[in-house]
């Protein structure tokens, strides 16, 4: 991606393979700081792997990833994962209440989340403070996703990775989550990297978009590229001919 923005995350010729599959192939490009970049592409394109490379759950076989200008391997893994938060589609929860889940990142540091911060967090994600004592097993899909995002925010990440967080939600919940992400981006200046299957969402919410196919970045730039792609494969993908 050629932009004049300062990169929050920069990939330089990054490759990643499992024993059987070459998943990410020579990816080079930047995710601009303070912006929302969406990642779109067919299933198996390597999008989730790319996110896991960003917060150090995986390491590249070759190439270098820079986080805020510093090579990723120079970060302590724990420091890196607090700086680069990750929210997943399934919004996994630990059993207990919403507060127990929000407290989890603090508990991992041997501390406790103050009640006032917990209230601020649930209200930030559009939930009432009474939710804090609710059991997570009683939450709807959209509410779970909001709690998952709020939990990630406890670490005050500067970069937030979102893996298809709205794909299993109804239209109303999806819109609420979209507004929430834009709100977080605007309020805290958080860099957002968002995997989505919803091209309309990528177009409306994303400042920039990467189109990934078969482990490669086929096209990247401002999200409007989805309206007039130049690459033939991307054209077919946008028309829904390539899943």
């Amino acid at each position, binding site marked *: 991606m050629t932009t004049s923005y300062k990169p929050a995350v920069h990939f330089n010729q990054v490759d990643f393979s499992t024993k059987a599959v070459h998943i990410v192939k020579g990816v080079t490009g930047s995710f601009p700081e303070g912006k929302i970049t969406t990642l779109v592409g067919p299933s198996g394109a390597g999008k989730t792997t790319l996110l896991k490379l960003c917060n150090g759950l995986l390491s590249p076989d070759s190439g270098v990833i820079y986080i805020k200008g510093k090579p990723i391997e120079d970060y302590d893994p724990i420091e890196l994962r607090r700086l680069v938060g990750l929210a997943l589609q399934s919004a996994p929860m630990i059993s207990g209440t919403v507060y127990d889940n929000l407290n989890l990142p603090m508990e*991992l540091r041997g501390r406790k989340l103050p009640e006032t911060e917990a209230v601020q967090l649930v209200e930030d994600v559009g939930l009432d403070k009474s939710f804090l004592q609710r059991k997570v097993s009683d939450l709807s899909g959209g509410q779970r996703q909001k709690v998952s995002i709020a939990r990630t925010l406890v670490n005050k990440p500067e970069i937030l990775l979102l893996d298809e967080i709205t794909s299993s939600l109804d239209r109303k919940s999806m819109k609420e989550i979209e507004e929430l992400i834009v709100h977080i981006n605007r309020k805290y200046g958080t860099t957002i990297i968002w995997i989505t299957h919803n091209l309309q969402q990528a177009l409306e919410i994303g400042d920039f978009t990467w189109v990934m196919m078969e482990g490669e970045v086929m096209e990247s730039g401002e999200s409007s590229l989805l309206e007039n792609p130049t690459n033939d494969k991307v054209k077919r993908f946008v028309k829904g001919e390539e899943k």
Partner: protein
Amino acid sequence: MSYLTLSITLIFVVIPLLLSKTLNLGLEKDTIIATIRSIIQLLLIGYVLKFVFESESLVYIFLMVTLMIVAATHNAQKKGAAIKGITWKVAVTLVFVEVLTQSILLGFQITPPTAQYIISISGMVIGNSMVLSILFLNRFTAEVESNQEATELILSLGGTPKQAIHKQLIDSIKASMIPTIESQKTVGLVQLPGMMSGQIIAGADPIQAVQFQLLILFLLLTTAAVTSIMLGFLSYPTLFNQRMQLLKN
């Protein structure tokens, strides 16, 4: 018991063979192999034990216990093939459990330092430790496999590998210890332990047989706890690399 009487007991082998044949279970071959193996192995070990007990040589006692540990390690490590270096982890655990229990038994003069006691009790301790290892490894590898997302959630929130695997580790340790604890709750009510029954049949005073059985039961509690916990804490770090990433197979 004479060999003639013993041969009559083969009727207990014929019954399952007939049942298997009638119901087409297909277990005849395995039953015959198991019977022949048990006859050969037990007779062989009977003669070996007779020789070792009579010699009272520390070298032979050491060799017997080593042989037990090697065989138990070989058997248990198969269940943890996904864990790097599992063979030595199981071996170290079994050696530690054996040394710990024998040190207490001999150190407090609970049992005499004779081949008869050391080898018999070692057999029970190592055998139990092997079963515990298998139960633990079976459960732990399944827990790790099915909870990858939960493990990665903790890691992604800035947790350490130990924090990320803690729940799976504790669940596996508890699950592997439960059979030992539960079977002790019903001992004497539902089942009479093999060793105690054997002693009583051989003419020993039932009270003395019970005392020895209690000793073994308490010993097996320690064996269960130490085996599961030690193997657990030796195993979990190898599931992660230095960058605190969960290694997948």
